[in-house]
């Protein structure tokens, strides 16, 4: 029941009802009693169906006006620009070694200093955004798509399909999934596709619970009875009728998972099982240089660490704003 997956960490932000009292959710008897339920149940119990069209545009306007969103989007945009166009304005070749200038402190020539191979840290930080901004969103997107399909199927068909797949999902979520994912990546060998698939599958399980709960709330509404009476096919009902109405919680879930995906990819890279050197990558660069920190060469490690922190903070700011706009 109250199984809490962590470590990626899982549902670190879980457990706090997104709207106090879980407005609009008949299932929640006592908000206090739900506090240890995993976040997917809370998020979706708080999330009401969002009618499409005009209200969407209104939400977008609200979003653009919220300060945290603007700040988060600006930071994210900066990193996207670095990832896409960084090759044009990076001061040095990020993989070019200069053994005559190793471990140099920040200076005018090297604003972030140089690392233990004499590579320019600023250039590596600029281009280190590239792989993580490909892998993490792909994994979060894959997880969202898989989770949406699974949740729609479970919520729409109910019965034995729901019970069977639900039990399997529960069993997997009761495992320390990140550690298991780590084991699988070690065993299969690290590569970008492996990372995306393993993280995507893991997140898909979590997301399917959110989508299922949202679908179950939609199920009894009139428009679905009408669709049934018209004799619409299951596929049409699920993807044309239901999907637009459960999109709100799905978008929220995507932004939250995106933050975790960055966390996970960065951590795996730090452990040497994510993005592989010599490709510039923040996590891998920190691993390569952290032993030099105690020798006083802090810049080699600190700047990539700050880059990760800024990206995760940006995603959190965006995610929180999106969540508060969609759920209101």
């Amino acid at each position, binding site marked *: 029941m109250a199984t809490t997956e962590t470590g990626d*960490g899982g549902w*670190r*932000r879980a457990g706090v009802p997104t709207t106090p009292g879980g407005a609009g959710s008949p299932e929640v008897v006592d908000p206090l009693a739900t506090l*240890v339920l995993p976040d997917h149940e809370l998020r979706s119990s708080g999330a009401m169906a969002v009618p499409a069209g005009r209200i969407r545009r209104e939400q977008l306007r609200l979003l653009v006006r919220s300060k945290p969103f603007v700040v988060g989007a600006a930071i994210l945009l900066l990193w996207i620009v670095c990832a896409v166009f960084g090759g044009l304005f990076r001061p040095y070749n990020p993989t070019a070694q200069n053994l005559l200038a190793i471990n140099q402190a920040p200076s005018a020539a090297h604003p972030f200093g140089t690392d233990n191979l004499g590579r320019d840290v600023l250039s590596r930080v600029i281009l280190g955004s590239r792989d993580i901004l490909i892998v993490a969103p792909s994994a979060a997107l894959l997880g969202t798509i898989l989770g949406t399909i699974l949740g729609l199927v479970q919520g729409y068909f109910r019965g034995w399909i729901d019970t069977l797949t639900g039990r399997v999902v529960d069993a*997997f979520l009761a495992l*320390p999934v990140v550690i298991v994912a780590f084991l699988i990546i070690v*065993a299969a060998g690290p590569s970008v596709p492996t990372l995306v698939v393993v993280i995507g599958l893991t997140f898909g399980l979590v997301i399917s619970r959110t989508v299922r709960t949202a679908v179950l709330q939609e199920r009894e509404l009139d428009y679905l009875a009408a669709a049934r009476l018209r004799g619409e096919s299951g596929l049409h009902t699920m993807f044309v009728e239901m999907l637009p109405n459960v999109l709100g919680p799905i978008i929220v879930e995507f932004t939250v998972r995106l933050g975790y995906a960055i966390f996970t990819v960065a951590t795996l890279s730090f452990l040497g099982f994510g993005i592989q050197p010599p490709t510039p990558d923040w996590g891998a660069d920190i691993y390569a240089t952290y032993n030099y*920190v*105690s020798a006083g060469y802090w810049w080699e490690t*600190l700047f990539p660490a700050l880059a990760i922190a800024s990206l995760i903070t940006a995603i959190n700011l965006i995610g929180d704003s999106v969540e508060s706009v969609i759920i209101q």
Partner: protein
Amino acid sequence: MARYLLKRLGLAVLTLVLLSVIVFLAGQVLPGNPGRAVLGHTASAQAVAAFNHKLGLDRPLVVQYWSWFTGLLQGNLGQSYQYQAPVGQFLGPAIGKSLRLAAVAFVIVVPLSIVGGVVAALNRGNAVDRVISTVGLSLSTLPEFVSGIVLIVIFAIELRVFPPGANPPPGAGFGTTLYHLILPAFPLVFVLFGYIARMARAGTVEALESDYVRTATLKGLPRRTVVTRHVLRNSLLPTITVIATQTGYLIGGLVVTETLFNYPGLGRLIFNAAQNKDFPMLEAGVMIIGIVYLAATLVADVLYTVLNPRLRLQGED
């Protein structure tokens, strides 16, 4: 009640079996030929075959799984590839080290986050609340190695108040050992703080809005009494179980923290095993983390059910 507990226990055992199958498949099937993986591409075919035969890796999978699983039950965790010695003798000391680090983190984070959450709730909506909530959330979403690096740079390199490594000099006493563990504990504290504090805050806010607190206030009780006698008692109930579940996270978060601080615990053992493709060691480590994790969630569930029967009744659908 007894039926629920039995059911929950059965589920935990079933999950454990599932975990063992996944770990076995990942560790012994996915890497392909373990002999080749360990000995490298230059080894001769005979050497690889001999290696596999010696470790029983040329038997059918089901047989291998069964002997591995029954061995596990008897406490035989297998033979390490890299040390050519039983895995168990490395795990014991490593677990002890990890427990020490985890205990330090827990002792710091539990009072800190409960006080933080309650203070935030009592100041609901104003600047104090916003600062605690925002800082807590930001800290909890940072990977441990990121916050760890920043801590090392500030407290070990610049201010020199803490040592940069977690290992005390040989023969150090309890105090010195503890002192070395404070800085490594903080990345774990950060991650847990946001989570537990949010829970404590939500529980306290909920209790503050309840009728019994209003009644107590209207009765003319001083705020202090209302908070300590009426609010906290109810608000900390869910927090206790969250703390139990977090044990599971903690043991996973050790992999990163121990690597960063060169601390020879279970996490670092797993990391080393992963780097050296020492699958028996890796599998045993993951199984132990899994068992701790499952035990922690089981305790959390049971504790919560015992403390709050409403959830149990709701849960039985």
